[in-house]
């Protein structure tokens, strides 16, 4: 048995920052990650970190841009925390040695990004995430924080009261990849989920193969609501063949988008007459696909992103990594030719419901980073706002878990008095009603127990699950199920959404669930069994895909990244509220909670979003 004060699950930017903060606040901390920390997907972030650092800019402008970008689905207290604290966090990174790009006077450089009213995106070339990840990991090494790398967390150890808000998280159960051992980790004070994205529910994504939404799925099955899951960001510039990301920095530096007819379509076809290429990501993604679908795409699939006019010196100074990516993965020399780009799944705005300290409705369970929804991005995340989220909320959750008093939250969690029930008419039965207890960690079926008993029971259940999967000799393989889910999500729950297609996705997900009942692991080994891990990840993907689609079907309006054929207007009268999905008796249950638009000193009045 491993015992610590705070267990951090996942070791990307948010997890590392949380671990550092918890340790500085006096806690005995361990990190458990299925990769090694430097392999985390934070390393793939390219563009930059928004922080109001300079004269002429301030956190209030940053907050205003973020609320507008979110299409007023962000919660103001969380957005204000993000924008108030990101300057000190960025400077903290600099003090930890991060190799930011510099101005002539030696200060950290900033550049313009989409949807920002000031050029406030700090960056390190076009590999900002790489530098952030390594800088934070260096600090973890310096502090001697214990890291269990290549340990896959199978489940949470959560007590079993009827109401999720009465439950407590006491630890996690993890599988040591190298040996096949299943062991328990007890957290005396808190478990912080920092498991990152869920892009693997789509087949064209910028996300790593490891981004399977494990944290969201585990918290969901422990009774924590998932918030705004339908809000999936599609990045307008990904390479068509692989989904590799071409940073928004290219457009920030002045890169231009052209269609097949050589038109600068963002202006010439009126998608964003003021901001053009620097409109926010949802706007640019829809513009590109509309061009393609109206016959003005190249190869009827993509558009061109041209940066040649920026000149070799500037490109090499600020976007060198982009030259390598275009060359290695598309065979294109960005200095000589325009790059082919199209939209790809990029980011989950929604996730585990938390308050502005990263707390969930289950006592002792926190979530930060992309797996969480605080919510700062609402219906559309601005470029450069993901990395500050990691460090600001990582720090806050780390401190809170370690026992620091950070005051009262203004964002509420759990189903409170302001919850409004939702209705949905799905074409098939959702969830897994055929096995109500299934692999849920808390189903309200047992009485409250001691912390030790909760952890011990979780350990037994996970050992059983692993043995059951390994013992079965035949059946369906996870790769087939995963491919089916990715296909239907890409076809039916993409940038453009319509009711029939969304229902078709639910039918396909239901079929995939049925097939998963017969899943088996072909590899019998207890050494580095990736077949087993991917099989369990695939189980998580099923729940994630269903949550996204349920939310997309329920939200009958057009807001931010969520475009609906049948509903072409943002309807503030009815939809200024968060979509919540809770796991209840083996099936998703839909409800809503209001958006918090009241900030510290003012209220963010919804306005029409034009760029």
């Amino acid at each position: 048995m491993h015992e610590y004060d705070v267990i951090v699950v996942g070791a990307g930017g948010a997890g590392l920052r949380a671990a550092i903060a918890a340790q500085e606040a006096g806690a005995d901390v361990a990190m458990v990650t299925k990769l090694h920390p430097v392999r985390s997907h934070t390393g793939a972030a390219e563009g930059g970190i928004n922080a109001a650092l300079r004269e002429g800019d301030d956190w209030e402008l940053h907050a205003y841009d973020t609320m507008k970008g979110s299409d007023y689905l962000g919660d103001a207290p969380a957005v204000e925390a993000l924008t108030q604290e990101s300057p000190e966090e960025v400077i903290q990174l600099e003090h930890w040695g991060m190799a930011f790009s510099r101005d002539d006077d030696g200060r950290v450089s900033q550049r313009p990004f989409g949807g920002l009213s000031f050029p406030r995106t700090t960056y390190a070339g076009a590999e900002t995430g790489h530098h952030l990840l390594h800088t934070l990991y260096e600090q973890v090494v310096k502090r001697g924080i214990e890291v269990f790398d290549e340990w896959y967390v199978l489940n949470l150890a959560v007590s079993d009261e009827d109401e999720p808000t009465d439950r407590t998280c006491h630890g996690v159960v993890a599988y040591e990849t190298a040996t096949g051992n299943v062991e328990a980790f007890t957290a005396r004070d808190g478990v912080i989920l920092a498991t990152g994205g869920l892009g693997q529910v789509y087949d064209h994504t910028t996300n790593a193969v490891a981004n399977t939404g494990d944290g969201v799925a585990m918290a969901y099955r422990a009774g924590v609501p998932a918030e705004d899951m339908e809000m999936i960001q599609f990045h307008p510039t990904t390479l068509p063949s692989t989904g590799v990301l071409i940073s928004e920095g290219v457009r920030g530096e002045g890169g231009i988008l052209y269609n097949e007819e050589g038109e600068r379509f963002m202006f010439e076809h009126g998608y964003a007459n003021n901001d053009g290429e620097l409109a926010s990501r949802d706007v640019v993604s829809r513009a590109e696909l509309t061009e393609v679908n109206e016959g003005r795409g190249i190869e009827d699939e993509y558009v061109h992103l041209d940066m040649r006019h920026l000149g070799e010196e500037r490109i090499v100074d600020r976007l060198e990594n982009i030259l390598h990516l275009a060359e290695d993965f598309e065979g294109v020399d960005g200095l000589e030719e325009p790059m082919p780009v199209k939209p790809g799944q990029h980011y989950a705005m929604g996730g585990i419901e938390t308050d502005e300290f990263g707390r969930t409705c289950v006592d002792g369970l926190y979530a930060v980073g992309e797996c969480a929804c605080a919510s700062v991005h609402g219906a559309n995340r601005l470029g450069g706002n993901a990395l500050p989220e990691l460090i600001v909320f990582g720090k806050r959750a780390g401190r809170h878990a370690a026992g620091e008093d950070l005051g009262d939250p203004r964002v509420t969690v759990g189903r409170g008095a302001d919850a409004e029930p939702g209705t949905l008419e799905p074409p098939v039965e959702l969830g897994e009603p055929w096995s109500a207890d299934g692999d849920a960690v808390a189903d309200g079926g047992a009485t409250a127990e001691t912390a030790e008993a909760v952890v011990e029971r979780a350990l037994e259940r996970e050992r059983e699950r692993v043995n059951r999967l390994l013992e079965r000799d035949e059946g369906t393989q996870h790769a087939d199920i995963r491919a089916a889910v990715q296909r239907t999500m890409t076809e039916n729950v993409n940038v453009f959404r319509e009711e029939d297609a969304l229902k078709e996705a639910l039918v396909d997900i239901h079929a995939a669930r049925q097939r998963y009942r017969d899943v088996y692991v072909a590899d019998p080994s207890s050494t580095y069994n990736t077949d087993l891990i991917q099989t369990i990840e695939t189980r998580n993907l099923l729940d994630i895909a269903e949550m996204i689609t349920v939310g997309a079907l329920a939200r009958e309006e057009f807001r931010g990244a969520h475009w609906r054929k049948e509903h072409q207007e943002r309807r503030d009268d009815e939809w200024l509220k968060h979509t919540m999905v809770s796991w209840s008796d083996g099936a998703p249950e839909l409800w809503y909670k209001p958006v918090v638009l009241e900030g510290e000193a003012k209220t963010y009045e919804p306005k029409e979003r034009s760029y």
Partner: protein
Amino acid sequence: MSTQRPEPEAETESAETDPEAETAQDRRLDEKRRRAEERERKRVEEAERAAADAERYHLKVFRYDPEVEGKQEPRFDDFHVPYETGMTVLDALIYARDEFDASLTFRHSCRQAICGSDALFINGSQRLGCQTQLSDLDQPVRIEPLPHQEVVKDLVVDMEHFYDQMESVEPYFQTTDRPDGDLEEQRQSRENREKIKTSTRCIWCGACMSSCNIAAGDNEYLGPAAINKAYRFAMDEREGEDMKQRRLEIIEQEHGVWRCQTQFSCTEVCPKDIPLTEHIQELKREAVKSNLKFW
């Protein structure tokens, strides 16, 4: 592949009401349909030709698993993977795993040469699987785990020693020279950032260490990656002179920079084009200049 159809509602008002625009769009859509048909015909032809030529890439993949009878004796397995333009070694391995043998084991994650998981020994050279096009390789493509590291299973090697060496050079920023004010950064000249830039690109993939003859014969040698990490900090002007001396002492130890015999193998295999050998030589020069004792 995943291009979705737009709905008429998404079109601009003017496109619907302006007859000329409508005609232009009809023309484009006709043209588009024609192109689509042509492409489809080509695709079918290509698919037929590929099937006729059996255009499959022949992979010979190293297999070993201490836990599984039959795999305890290392061997090579043959996989014949259907080729598509742009396919990388990693794509081929994923295909082989998903379609032929779910137990085929290898590390991979980002698919874009930044996580450093999938350094492999491909046709006799250390490379990242995700960054290596099949079309650049002679067949059969031999795929093996990184040499000089203990094999855990199939293509997975034990990275612990590599991580230990990385951590032995105090791989974290250390400075006493903090600027005044909470929101003041330390200044760093553009020139100085440029100087350390390539060294900061290391993704810890281990290719350099695996390619190094000296590291293969001397288990305590810090190796190119760890020395490059030391370079990254030693050359950063923000750390100050005292700390630079401390860093030079670390890399000057018995199994440090002086072991390097400038064979350039690390530089040749580095997937991030870090001039590792140069960095090692520059640290030797700095060490001499600083009048420290050396062996």
